[in-house]
């Protein structure tokens, strides 16, 4: 899964999708995942990064990440390859 290109995100969590004109707000963890996606990382790489960084149960991190990705896909922010 790849984030659509040209998606703009600010440090404050405001995200703008120029294809649809929709905007979103994200919390800091959300911003971080978007940045990883923009950098072309895979879900597995992102998960490993989160596990390394955060004090949280591995399975919860996994569940939350996939839930978040589901939301990105629901909002059509991902390229379907």
């Amino acid at each position: 899964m790849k984030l659509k290109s040209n998606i703009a995100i600010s440090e404050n969590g405001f995200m703008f999708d120029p294809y649809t004109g929709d905007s979103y707000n994200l919390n800091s963890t959300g911003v971080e995942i978007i940045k990883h996606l923009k950098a072309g990382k895979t879900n597995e790489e992102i998960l490993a990064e989160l596990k390394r960084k955060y004090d949280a149960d591995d399975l919860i991190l996994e569940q939350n990440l996939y839930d978040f990705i589901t939301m990105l896909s629901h909002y059509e922010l991902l390229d379907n390859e």
Partner: protein
Amino acid sequence: MKKLKYEKPIINKIKAGVPDKYGMQPKIVVKSEIDGIPVKEIVEKYGSPVFVISEKTLRDTFQQANRAFQSRYPKVQFAWSYKTNYLDAVCRLYHEEGSWAEVVSGFEYDKALSNGVPGNKIIFNGPDKTDEDLKKAIENGSFIHIDHFDELYSLIRISQNSKEKAKVAIRVNMDTGIYPKWDRFGFNYENGEAWKAINRIMLAENLELVGLHTHIGTYMMTATAYAVAASKLAELAVRTNKKFKHTIKYIDMGGGFASKNTLKGAYLPGKDTCPTFDDYAEAITSAIINSEIAPDQLPTLFLETGRALIDDAGYLIGSVLANKRLSNARRAKILDIGVNILFTSFWYEHEVYPAEETSQQTEDTTLYGPLCMNIDIIRESIQFPALKKGDLVVIPRIGAYNMTQWMQFITYRPNVVLIDQNKKMHLIRKQENLKVFKEQEVIPDFLLNKTPLKD
């Protein structure tokens, strides 16, 4: 390297038009303790879900209401509405505060007696009183509030053979300018039925008309309707006095005061719009004082308010069973609190609070109960933070009706705990178990001692 504190990733779409921005979002209120006892501790000891009653809130609220009326009127008597919450511990607290008992069935009547309430401090209301009930009430000197002519004639018949005079009042229904009009209980004022009933009682040898009673509706958001009702009852009292030289001893204004819950369909929250005890008291007492009743004959004012007294003292604690995404990606949570124990969620938008600090971000969420039924919805839509399985939630302001109208369905009804004023917890109703239900059931002989599914 020290790991960082984690927060679940969240993305919310900004809808043009709808305010759901950080700047706007209210701080999430966390309800981590009840009367100084951590919610977690309550659940560790008594399980989840669990009902909690706060003695302090119960007494404070009662005293507030009592003060509102006592400071405006010389003779005031509250009677605890058993149907609102008839757990013995709760009833006894109100009796300790000086409340009489207001009951609407033989079961509630016996419960009041068993709580040590003398018969002459019980008000017996409602359309369902058996002849046995009536006999008992006459003997005990209880106040019988007559609902319909059939009951009036039963009483005339029964009282003929009794040594004691029956102390009676009639329940009056009337137009107070509010909708819906409750005209199914008692005798109507406008069409003259109430006056007819009074006349018939005055002719009956063994009935003594002691009071007039009304109960204009439930969840009354306007105090003025009570002023209309009180002046109509006062008018009946004056008329009775003129014709029969008989003094009415009390006027019973019933209940129906709103609690601060928000009704479904209301635009503004209940805590902003609900009248205060002072508003109700001012409306009722000034209507009676300004009526034509002679000052030396002012009747005692009875009040049977239930909901407004107990709602705030009750809490329901539960926990998250699961998080879900619905097919349209909407966030949903399943709680272990179902509509069977939180009946009032059918008409209130109950507040629901997390019991622990959470992230400040929220999602528009549906809160479901655990029953395998589509109607089991606690909140259709609430801005709610992310909680994980097992996290606790607290629903405040649920003390009225839930612990009487609850249904046993699929599983047992939970423990009810009282927190006393010294922050001590007491179990006041035990969670049901299989034995409780087995005891009520009888298996016919022909089905006993058979085990058809065993090989």
